[in-house]
Every structure is written in structure tokens, then in C-alpha cells.
């Protein structure tokens, strides 16, 4: 039964190594046997899924704006623009001025050259704090700080796309993406918002972004493998990817009254924080599956599994235990996109619902075919280190 306050998805903006836009992603991912785009040399021994060629001008018209950002903020602003375009909101001053926004963000890129010079100098100096002052006061670009600030992705979206109803930035890896979507949907259901932009971006092609995983040994090394097949391989199992995913969530009544296409309805969203050191993760994932109230019959699941050994093993065990579930681990084809992982999973789920077709297996060894029309699709993001979330996406 649909209700006027349902949350529907009326715009999708995607960028990954596979390309840009929701159509491009659907067409590629619907091809059986699609090969991932891999960069194996630049960050060896790590493999990453690199950004595609992007003409930033298409979504960020002013060169001055582009110069104020580094790649991460450009990528997010670009993906947000794609979603706004897709929803028919871009350039509509009234809709943008009343649009709320929740962005899931980490931090932006540091200046690697400045950092490397400081580290090199530190080999021969003991007064490292003085060294820092000397170098940072003279060599940092003043505006780089703004390109690093977490909330300045949202700030740039306000400036470039004029989304100014409200602006919030959630931090905390995959959990930030889960909470962003969950909070945005709750605002719509309660009548606080009529339309919200929600999503995130991750630019992995920077050594600090890899370091953020590797300080705990989370990255996979050696020959690339699909996300479900990295147990026992060298390293920690995560292969990262650059990408971004933004969704326009809208109150059903609001979307239909302006005659917009609806991809899908966003159903229940559940989230949790297993105390993993106490072994709670398996039970937590099972509990979330129960809370999200799966429908009867076959179910397509778009899994955001990162490849991280413990979390991915736990998720796979719980999904495999339910024979009705056919999972698709999209990190096989896009890499892990951290804060953008959950919005990306929800977007892929919505595309399958909209096209009334499941994706073929992304990994013939570990995934089962799905026949028929997926009227409801599960999206998951089990954090590589902490926090878990799931949502159900259903036919509009």
C-alpha cells in the first residue's frame, strides 16, 4: 500500500571506474561477465579501481569552483549534480533552495609533496615540531584546508548547485552513509522534508586514503580477486575504488505532483553497532536481516561487502544461510567506496527494481543466478571495521 509520505528515489547520480550516470551503470552491470577496471601499477602492491575520465565542466561550470576543490570534493559535487539533473531539480531555484542535504564524508586530500618533504627532512632533524612549523607555514596552500574539510563537500554542493535548505555532514566510514540515508528517510517520513539530497564520494587514488585502511592491514595485496574470494590471500581483503553515489529522496506525493519518474520506494532502513571484539557481528547481521523484514520468496541482495576478511566472512555466512537470497557483491566491480558504499548499494538496488531485472552474477564462483523480477531488493553495508546497515528497496 503506497502512502503520500512514502520515501521514493527520484534521482540517482553515480560515478565509479565503470563510468558515470545511472544508465551507464545499469547497462554495464547488466552484462554477464563484465570485467572490472583495475589500476595495478600506480599503488602496487595494492590494486585500485580508478576514476573514469570525467569532464568536470559538465557539472561544475565555473573553473574557479573547480580550483577550490581537490578530486574528492569535485567527484562528490559532480555525482550530486548528476543526481539533481536526474531528478529534474538542477537549476530549479525554488526546489534547490528548499532541498535538504545529508552528505557522508571523510576528509579530503593532503598535499603529498609537502608531507613527503617534511618527512624527508625529519630523517636528519630532532626538532621535528619546529620543522613542522617552518614547512607548514611556508608551503601549505591556504585554500587546501578547505579542500580537506569534511563538511566542505556539502559546502561546495551548496555553492555549485544551490542546494541550501539545510546541510549536514555525517562522518564515520560506511556507517556515515547508512546514517545519512536513514536520517534523510526519517525526515521525509515524518514530514520534516519533502526532498533531500543524500550521498557521498570516495577518492582512493591518494596514498593517505590507502593508509586509512592499511594502518590496520585491511588492504588486499597481490593478484586481484573477486570480493568473496580474498580469504586466505595476501593482505586484509579490501580493494578500494574511487566513486560517488548520490540519491534524491523525495516524499512520494512531492515527486508525483511534479510528474517525476520514480525509480523505487525506499523501505525500511536498519542500522547497528556490533561490538565486534566481543564477537557480536554475526548475530548483529542476522538481527538486522530480521528487523528489515524480508519479503517471502527469492530475494536479490546488493551487498556492499568490502572484502575485509572478518566482516565479509560474517556477512557471507548470514546471507548464505538464507537460501532465498541471491547476493551480488558489487565491490568486485567497483572496489570499496567507503562513505559512498551504502548509497551506492541503495542506488544499484533501485536500478534493478526499476528495470524489473536482476543483475547477472558478478562472481560465477560465489554467487547464484536470480531468475524473475526483483520487486524488492536488499542493500547492505557491513563496515570493514565498524558499523552495519541495511535497507529494502521496493517497486514504486
Amino acid at each position, binding site marked *: 500500500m503506497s502512502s503520500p509520505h512514502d520515501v521514493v528515489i527520484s534521482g540517482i547520480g553515480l560515478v565509479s571506474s565503470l563510468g558515470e550516470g545511472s544508465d551507464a551503470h545499469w547497462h554495464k552491470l547488466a552484462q554477464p561477465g563484465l570485467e572490472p577496471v583495475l589500476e595495478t601499477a600506480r599503488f602496487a602492491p595494492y590494486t585500485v579501481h580508478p576514476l573514469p575520465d570525467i569532464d568536470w565542466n559538465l557539472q561544475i561550470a565555473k573553473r574557479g569552483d573547480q580550483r577550490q576543490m581537490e578530486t574528492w570534493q569535485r567527484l562528490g559535487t559532480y555525482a550530486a549534480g548528476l543526481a539533481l539533473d536526474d531528478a529534474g531539480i538542477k537549476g530549479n531555484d525554488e526546489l534547490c533552495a528548499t532541498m535538504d542535504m545529508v552528505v557522508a564524508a571523510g576528509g579530503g586530500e593532503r598535499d603529498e609533496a609537502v608531507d613527503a618533504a617534511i618527512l624527508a627532512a625529519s630523517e636528519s632533524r630532532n626538532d621535528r615540531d619546529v620543522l613542522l612549523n617552518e614547512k607548514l607555514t611556508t608551503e601549505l596552500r591556504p585554500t587546501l*584546508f578547505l579542500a580537506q574539510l569534511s563538511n566542505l563537500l556539502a559546502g561546495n554542493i*551548496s*555553492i555549485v548547485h544551490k542546494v*541550501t535548505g539545510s*546541510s549536514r555532514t555525517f562522518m564515520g566510514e560506511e556507517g556515515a552513509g547508512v546514517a545519512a540515508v536513514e536520517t534523510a528517510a526519517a525526515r521525509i517520513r515524518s514530514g520534516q522534508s519533502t526532498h533531500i539530497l543524500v550521498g557521498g564520494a570516495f577518492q582512493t587514488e591518494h*596514498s593517505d586514503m590507502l*593508509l586509512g585502511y592499511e*594502518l590496520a592491514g585491511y588492504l588486499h595485496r597481490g593478484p586481484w580477486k573477486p570480493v568473496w574470494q580474498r580469504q586466505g590471500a595476501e593482505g586484509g581483503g579490501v580493494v578500494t575504488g574511487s566513486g560517488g553515489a548520490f540519491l534524491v529522496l523525495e516524499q512520494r506525493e512531492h515527486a508525483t505532483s511534479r510528474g517525476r519518474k520514480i525509480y523505487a520506494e525506499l523501505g525500511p532502513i536498519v542500522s547497528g553497532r556490533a561490538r565486534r571484539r566481543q564477537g557480536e557481528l554475526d548475530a548483529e547481521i542476522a538481527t538486522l536481516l530480521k528487523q528489515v523484514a524480508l519479503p517471502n520468496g527469492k530475494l536479490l541482495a546488493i551487498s556492499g561487502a568490502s572484502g575485509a576478511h572478518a566482516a565479509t566472512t560474517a556477512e557471507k555466512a548470514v546471507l548464505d544461510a538464507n537460501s532465498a537470497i541471491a547476493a551480488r557483491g558489487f565491490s568486485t566491480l567497483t572496489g570499496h567506496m567507503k562513505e559512498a558504499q551504502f548509497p551506492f548499494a541503495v542506488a544499484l538496488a533501485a536500478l534493478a527494481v526499476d528495470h524489473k531485472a536482476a543483475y547477472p552474477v558478478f562472481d560465477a564462483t560465489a554467487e547464484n543466478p536470480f531468475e524473475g523480477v526483483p520487486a524488492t531488493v536488499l542493500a547492505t553495508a557491513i563496515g570493514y571495521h565498524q558499523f552495519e546497515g541495511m535497507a529494502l528497496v521496493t517497486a514504486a
Partner: protein
Amino acid sequence: MANLNDHMGRPIVAVTGIGVVTSLGVGKTDNWAALTSGKSGIHPITRFPIDQLNTRISGMVDFLASSSKGASPLTYELAELAGLEAVAEAGLDSSDFGGPLFLASPPVELDWAERFSLYNSDKDKDDTAAERLLRVARSLKELDIFETTQFGSIADRLADRLGTRGLPITLSTACASGATAIQLGVEAIRRGECDRALSIGADGSATAEALIRFSLLSALSTHNDIPEKASKPFSRDRDGFVLAEGSGALVLESLEAALARGATVLGILGGCGEKADDFHRTRSKPDASPAIAAVRAALADAGLGEDEIDYVNAHGTSTPENDKMEHLALSTVFGERISSMPVSSNKSMIGHTLSAAGAVEAAFSLMTMRESVIPPTINYDNPDPAIVLDVVPNKKRNAEVRTVLSNSFGFGGQNTCLVMAREPV
């Protein structure tokens, strides 16, 4: 029987616990005594060398166990202290809070101390700095350094310590973050998702690099000679904010739940308003329209008219731009009345606690109403003739305060305002 719902039929949100840490001390008692006696917490920087630095003063919190251990450990300790004080005052179990956590905290990065030690722990190989850091990183045997780089880790630890429920939300709206954390808690209670929420703003990120970054943007005061005089909101010779650390925490609770368990109601969180600015990354729209819209949205959300606000706890950073813009916003919203309304800035004494500021200042706003004492704006010796405000200059004032507007504005076009009341309205 008290009315338990507000003018829009939503549950009224009460405050039942308050916690605060600033450079003036740990806890409400010490902070309030200092704040109302016009004492400044701004002092010379000793945490790191000041060679080459244009700004050599701050409101750092230098007296905690983690004060010299880096931004993440100190931010955690600040958040924990404020959270524990608030939960204890609310009379709740400090290890089983039982509601969600909303944490405003600064973005995290690998500290330089760790960068240096990782890099210099393995000098043998002929590789780039980035390669060396990654190679050393993957052989680390413990998670301590890793967790300082995860944006969700401070909240995760707090959730363990305080027994909050569910996925904790860590957020940043720059210098409005503390207010946003409170807003998220209010909204969760109003939507009926929970009976209580813990909102904390904490910031222990005053590193050398942070100071240099703000300096490069010309945002900081360079009045180094008399540190306690450097933060002078609304004065003609104000020249920037003073970087500071601190934390504030509120236990928010539906009035119904608070009364049902016999809790003391310390105040009411009546309204929240926000509006994003699309003008510039660091500057506000010259007509102050987004700040004006945020103030009006907070008043409307609280169901109060412009004539029903008794006192404004200003953002009042002491930057030339903010104070001018804030005055324009307030005079636009409140009209003639603004010249006779008390408007003071806590930052004159504690500096700008960044991600914590909105929460710290909400805590002080609530205490202002409870104690019927308005903390002053100190260092107001040279008024800006273009800003005609009653800033409660230099000395506290005894006054009945029934309602407060607290402003928070931040880089990235963030504007969030809170309206608080002493009693349900």
C-alpha cells in the same frame, strides 16, 4: 498536568543533564564561576613550539591526561568527561545510557607525531614517503594508530563507555557542529525514535597544523601580547578568533519521559533552525540572508515571536566579518529592539571551540536561564560603532532570562540556531 506536546503537536524536548569542559576547567561549577567573573581561559601556547607562528595564544585544554597525546585521544577524553557529567546530572546509568549518541567532533587525520614515528621506524628501503608509510603501516600489530584515523572511532568508543544505543552518528557542520548534534537529538525525540538522546560536541584538535591552516586563512587573532585580551567580539579592534578546545554535552529527553521518571528539568530545547549559504566557502552572504533565515527558522520551530527572546548567546567569534554579519542578521530579525536586548559572546572568554562551540554555548545558555545571570562579553573596551548592541560589557548581569537564542555559523555555509527556554512554553 503539564502540556507534553509543543505548538506543532510534537513531544516537548527537555534537557535533564548538562556537561562542559573548556580552558576554564572541567565541569559546570568551575566553568560557571569563571565565566560569570569575566575570567579568560586564553593563554600562551605551550603544547608545541611557537617558532614561525603568527598566532601564539589559544584556549587549549592543557590540563587533561590526553592533552599532549594528539587530537583523537583528547577529543575522546573531552567528550567522555562532558558526557559523563551530563548523564550523571540526569540521574541515569553512566554505563547504560539507553538512547542514541550524536557526536560533533573534528575531522580526523593521522597526527604528525605518528607520521614521523612510522616514517622513521624503517629507513632502510629506497622508496617514496608514501610507500614507506604504507609498508610500515601494514605490519603494525595494534589498532591504536589506525583508530585515530577512523572518523567513527571516537563515537564508537563513547558508545561502549556510555552504553548508548544503535549506530552512533558523528557529524560535522564545521563551527556549527555542536548545535547540529543537539538538533539531531531533538529531531530524533520529536519523531518518536527515542525517549532520550545524548548530544555531545567535543574538539581537541588544536594542533600546530590546525593553527597554521586557520592562520593561512587570516582567521585568527594575532594579539599575542596579552592573551586574555585577544578575543574581543564586537569590538572595533577585533582581529580574528582565538582557537580553542572544549566540550559540551546535553542529555535530551522527552518532557513526558523526564517527568515520568521524576528527573529535574533543567530547560527546554524549544526550536532548531538551519539554512545553508551558497555564497562562498568561508564568507557569508553580505546581506546575511542565510543567517537571518536560520534565526527565523529556529523561532518558528519554537513557536516564539521575535519579541519573545530575552537574550542572545551570540556566535560572536571576534572576526571582523562574523560579528558584522551577525549584527546585521540580529538587527534585521529583531529590529529596533536589538539595541536593548542583551547579546553576549562566551567566546570572549573561552575562545572558539570549533566543533564543540554550539554544544558548549548551549550548555552556558541553559545555565544563564537557570542562574538568572548573563555572562559578559569581556574585552569590550573599544566598541565597534557600526555594531550597536548591548553586549553585556565586561561584567556579568543579573537578569531573568526565560528564553535564549544561541547562534552557530560555520565555514561551508553552515548556519544553525537553537532556541532554548527555561520552562515549557
